[in-house]
């Protein structure tokens, strides 16, 4: 190591080391840049969830294929549910209706969507009658399991069919207790947790739309994440 012949190699080694330092610095710089880039996380707007095929396989309650972007609207407010649910799903639809009324002119920017997690029992006609009873502005989407699963992955939502209980007529569906505000560009600026009181849930929806519009990040109360 410490021999006289080591001088030249050492100098050559120094140049090599410099080159390595430069490469390492470059890599490190890139890594820092990547690390500092906004990433999808709990409170930050999530990365693009739409590609054109986000709603491929879905039909709306008027029988039209669902397109990636809503016509003339800026957001979709996605609610999972099913019409054989007499309790929580109607409550949520009441909250959505109240929110539409309380949003004023902002309501024109939001298309509320009731996505059925029970396509087996929810036909397009059944869905249309159901959501129309709450507000004609509420749409319903029906897709097969493949379409639903794709949407679930993108929006970080879940659903499953509960096992049939002995003596029970029919079955229950369980699904994420979360409403997702989805912007047309595929960003999810807000997630709204289900709250039992429809009036309070409506307020939560209204404030989520206001936050999304102002671009302000709320403290995180209204924009709660899907629990893992």
């Amino acid at each position, binding site marked *: 190591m410490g021999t006289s012949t080591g001088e030249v190699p050492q100098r050559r080694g120094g140049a090599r080391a410099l080159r390595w330092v430069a490469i390492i610095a470059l890599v490190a710089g890139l890594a820092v840049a990547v690390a500092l880039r906004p990433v999808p996380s709990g409170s930050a707007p999530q990365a693009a969830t739409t590609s054109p095929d986000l709603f491929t396989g879905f039909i709306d309650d008027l029988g039209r294929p669902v397109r990636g972007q809503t016509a003339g609207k800026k957001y979709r407010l996605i609610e999972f549910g099913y*019409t*054989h*649910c*007499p*309790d*929580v799903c*109607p*409550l949520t639809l*009441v909250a959505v*209706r*109240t929110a539409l009324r309380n949003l004023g002119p902002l309501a024109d920017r939001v298309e509320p969507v009731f996505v059925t997690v029970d396509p087996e029992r929810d036909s397009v*006609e*059944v869905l249309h*009658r*159901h959501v*129309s*009873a*709450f507000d004609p502005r509420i749409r319903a989407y029906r897709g097969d399991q493949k379409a639903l699963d794709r949407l679930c992955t993108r929006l970080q939502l*879940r659903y499953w069919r*509960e096992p049939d*209980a*002995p*003596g*029970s*007529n*029919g079955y*229950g*569906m*369980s*699904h*994420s*207790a*979360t409403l997702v505000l989805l912007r047309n560009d595929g960003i999810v600026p807000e997630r709204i*947790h*289900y709250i*039992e009181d*429809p*009036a309070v849930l409506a307020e939560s929806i209204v404030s989520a739309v206001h936050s999304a519009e102002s671009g302000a990040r709320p403290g995180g109360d209204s924009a709660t994440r*899907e*629990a*893992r």
Partner: protein
Amino acid sequence: MPSLYRLKGRSAASAQTLIWWLTFVTAAAAAPPATSLRIEQAWARETPPGATVAAAYLRIVNGGAADVLRGASTPVAKQVELHSSTVENGMMRMRPMPELAIPARQTVAFKPGTLHIMLIDLARPLKAGERVHLTLMFRDAGPISVDVPVRGLDEGEPDGH
């Protein structure tokens, strides 16, 4: 008829006593059994057109010993089930319950978002303002019937919850 004439002929007074006695016994048998259960604040939610299911809510106030709610029935639905809605790990879960314990000296409340009485296969939609008959079946207290007012979609829970 001949026997009645004979009876009447023998003693009108004793026949009258017998009738009074029969009336009393019949009335006693028809009256609900003495129970410490009270049903309060019953209501059901109006259903959207075409709906085949509905939810009813109420409070069971138990002033006495523990009992068990085993089920219910109504003329407006083929089947009635007790259901729970619970949020668990971000999931809204819907599950039927075969029966529900009514602990001694406690109140069990069916409330939106927690417990509901699910009416399945409705004979017709439920309209706001009408009343539907609901009979709850208890293990010890037997059947208890209530008239359940139907409330509009926007009305929500009755006051005083």
